[in-house]
């Protein structure tokens, strides 16, 4: 489920559990870039942000490395830190910008808060992700594609706590127009400790969580270790473990149609492994908004062509169908559908983009 419930620590405390990250050029204004991080899967009506957590969006300029197969991430970083008061039910929010400015706002106010070149929102919204979770799990357990024509959306009618940041990218970010984006939750205090981090969707769950195909670390619950890593500077200690797990699981998906569409390279790696380990969203702010452009930049790299879209990730792309098709047949075969093609409600093209929270009856219907 994208990054919902992605490891023991996240399960123990959903207030730190990042469910998704999105990055897209603003549909109504190309000068702006929109970054969104959602937390708290299955948020009931009383859910609130923690007053002990920093909700962080990290952005770095990125380019395609000379080898054409990997990203070169610049060291310059722009950090947007969101923190919240302990008041309830309305919380006072604070967004610290990379230029030192601070934008204050109150949670769940539709217009959010604004400052020079920035607009922010935080509050409960409809979860824009959709997936037939049980059939995804069954596919892994039975090693056979288990989806039905009409699936059952595990997230139907569910809500999350959303944080939306709309920025004039040329003013607030360094470099560009291509950026790498990561979301993190950190414990506040003198020494911030990283609790979770998310870049790409479905890395920790669909791609990393299954243990049985991994002959190197069959018993290792790898996700909390992975969560603690700096996405822009992966430590060497566990890189081999991540690589082994991804290679094993990606090979499993590739074999679901009894064909090899992703032959391993000379180093014994799946061609997607290194790109996925670069676990950040890559968005090109100079390209127009697109609803279905996740991973197009990476696919262009694999095909040796110039990318045509903004990449990044829009709220309602049918990510599960896209990923499964990519993993199973490299997009060369029939589309692999999980039978769930839309969220309960579409997101909006205007701020704050995410649909209002579902009422309890919606979840029950």
């Amino acid at each position, binding site marked *: 489920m994208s990054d919902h419930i992605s490891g023991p620590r996240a399960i123990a405390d959903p207030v*730190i559990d990042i469910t998704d990250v999105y990055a897209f050029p603003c549909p109504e204004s190309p000068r702006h870039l929109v970054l969104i991080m959602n937390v*708290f899967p299955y948020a009931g009506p*009383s859910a609130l942000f*923690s*007053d002990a*957590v920093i909700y962080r969006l990290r952005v770095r300029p990125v380019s395609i490395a000379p080898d054409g197969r990997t990203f070169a991430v610049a060291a310059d970083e722009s950090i947007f830190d969101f923190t919240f008061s302990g008041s309830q039910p309305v919380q006072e929010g604070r967004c610290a910008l990379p230029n030192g400015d601070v934008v204050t706002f109150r949670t769940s106010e539709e217009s959010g808060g604004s400052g020079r070149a920035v607009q922010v929102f935080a509050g409960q919204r409809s979860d824009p992700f959709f997936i037939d979770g049980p059939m995804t799990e069954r596919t892994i357990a039975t090693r056979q594609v288990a989806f039905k024509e009409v699936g059952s959306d595990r997230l139907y009618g569910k809500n999350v706590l959303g944080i939306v940041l709309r920025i004039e990218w040329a003013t607030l970010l360094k470099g560009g127009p291509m950026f790498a984006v990561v979301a993190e939750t950190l414990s506040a205090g003198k020494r911030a400790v990283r609790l979770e981090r998310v870049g790409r969707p479905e890395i920790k769950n669909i791609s990393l969580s299954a243990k049985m195909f991994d002959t190197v670390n069959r018993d290792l619950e790898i996700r909390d270790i992975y969560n603690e890593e700096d996405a822009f500077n992966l430590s060497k200690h566990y890189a081999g473990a991540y690589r082994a797990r991804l290679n094993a699981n990606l090979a499993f998906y590739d074999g679901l149609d009894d064909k090899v569409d992703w032959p391993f390279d000379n180093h014994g790696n799946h061609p997607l492994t290194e790109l996925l380990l670069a676990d950040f969203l890559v968005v090109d702010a100079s390209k127009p908004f697109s609803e279905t452009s996740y991973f197009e930049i990476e696919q262009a790299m694999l095909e040796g062509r110039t990318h045509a879209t903004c990449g990044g990730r829009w709220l309602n792309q049918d990510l599960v169908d896209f990923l499964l098709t990519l993993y199973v047949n490299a997009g060369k075969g029939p589309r692999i559908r999980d039978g769930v093609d839309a969220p309960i409600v579409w997101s909006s093209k205007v701020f704050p983009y995410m649909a209002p929270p579902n009422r309890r009856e919606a979840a029950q219907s």
Partner: protein
Amino acid sequence: MIDERPLTDGTIALLNLDAQIDALEPEVRRGRASVETRAGLAELISLRGLIVGRIADYDRAEEIAEHLVRDAPMDASSLRARARTRAGFHRFNDALADVDRAERLSLDTETANGERAAIFQALGRYDESYVLRDEAAKRQGSFENLAALVGLHAERGEIEAAEHQYEQSCCRYRGVSPFPVALLDFQLGLMWMNAGQLNDARRLFEAAWRRVPLYAQAQGHLAEVEAELGEVDCAISRLRSLAASSDDPDYAAQLARILEDVGHEDESRRWRRLAASRYDELIASHPEAFADHAAEFWLAAGGDPDKALRLAKMNAEVRNTSHARSLLARAVAAKA
């Protein structure tokens, strides 16, 4: 040490626990939730019951777990969930049988032993519990494994070891939820209270209460310590609010006893009546779980030594802890 670290405000944490439960409960009631979701919901509801002192929550968790085993009897997660709710209601042998079955199905030995260690501890089989808990802590020195050792040492009155492990476990805590830390403070507070060191007990109960203001047991024990230290008004005020809001009769019983001690007979009688009828209800539905507390009540404010002796005997049969033996001895003495 843990005070240097930021934790989520206790009221927000409890609202978020409610939010998790509220989101999952409709799915479970509609019968469309997975085994993991149902087991997870039982766990969350039990945690809320533990924090706010709500017996209705334990009942609901037990119901979910029983239905889970009925619907998925060959799933280890179902049996593990039921083992936990059964242990919560002091049905220790049934709980151990569930853990054994879960392990035979697919529950890994490490997890099964963690469940067994908790049950052995509740049964007063401290040595067996220690072997398992110590082994787990040596294998992985996580907060959870070290905190479990704190509880065991504290219950055995091993003050130095408990304090040492408390420091160690605090160092390992990486989360921001205040619940695990408040529960740890509470266990250490109980240890000091049992050792007669009331000021230390108060410090720990206050810490637990500050972290989670609606933590009922922490408040209840804080009131007990306050009463012992002569701060009776404070204790009464704390207990009035607890006794009025909780469906656990312990607070009404405690309040009745303190009010009687200070000569407030009428109000004491009211709370005593309420506690007596609630204990009778609970003994009818969950005899093993409430025998000890009900026996304490009938020995003190309840004023019925016959009933107290019968329940103290039942409790000593369920678990052979030093507290159970001491309760039985007091009940026998009261009868004589």
